[in-house]
């Protein structure tokens, strides 16, 4: 049987890699990928805790939270990528540092 802390360690590592990407990536799409990795880490944590601590009690909060995170991730990817493409049309760049003025 797999111990719970293996899952938690994996999630922690994945989260840290994602965080690193969010802070250091220049490309806006890269930042979005890193955010998705962080959300996945959170999902692993939620599902592991639900499975090990709550799966016998009939408490479904862990699963419901994961579903909501899926929805948020999908919405975020759709809107975020639309914004990136729209910004690229205006400025011809996707480097996050160079998109710094409010007016097109």
């Amino acid at each position, binding site marked *: *049987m*797999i111990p719970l802390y293996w899952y938690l360690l994996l999630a*922690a590592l*994945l989260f840290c890699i994602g965080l690193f990407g969010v802070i250091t990536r220049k490309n806006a*799409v890269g930042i979005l990928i890193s955010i998705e990795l962080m959300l*996945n880490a959170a999902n*692993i944590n939620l599902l592991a805790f639900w499975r090990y601590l709550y799966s016998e009690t009939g408490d479904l909060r862990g699963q*419901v939270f994961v579903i909501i995170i899926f929805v948020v991730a999908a*919405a975020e990817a759709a809107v975020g990528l639309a914004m990136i493409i729209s910004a690229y049309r205006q400025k011809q760049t996707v480097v996050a540092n160079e998109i710094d003025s409010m007016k097109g």
Partner: protein
Amino acid sequence: MTGMQLIFLIAAAVVVSSAFMSVTSRRMIHAALWFVLALLGVAVIYALLEVSFFAVVQVLVYVGAIAILIIFATMLTRRALEDHGKQFNRATLMTLVIVSVIFAGLVFSLRSWPQIQSMTAPLSADQLDVGVLGLALTAPDGFALPFEVTSILLLAALIGSIYVAYERKEKKK
């Protein structure tokens, strides 16, 4: 070491290494492809947790939709598919330090929780039914409100992304 543990270790190694490659690789399109591999690894992890519904939804939503969207966006925002110049900003070293500190803190807090070493999953396959989750999501005393809110969020995202990405015709003239 049992077979389950071996599968977990392989999947975890795939997830971590491909996630690392996807935040560090120079060409954005390669980053996106590594990202897909990481997502598939996470789906395997879900399957090991015996939540097959989430494993399948992970492949369906992330690989089938989000990753493909990201690959499309990467290709649409590159004239040539080559990425020149540095891919990281100046804060790389500092971020590395911060991230290591955070990871060390997480590991430390895990170690300071003594019961966690002995925790094992209960063997209750009957609780993992999808129907139970569906009923909980729609029951008025369950999670009906959050469920409705997420559907409104999706609708808003749908309309919003169409509005944002819509190429206005008068600007073309």
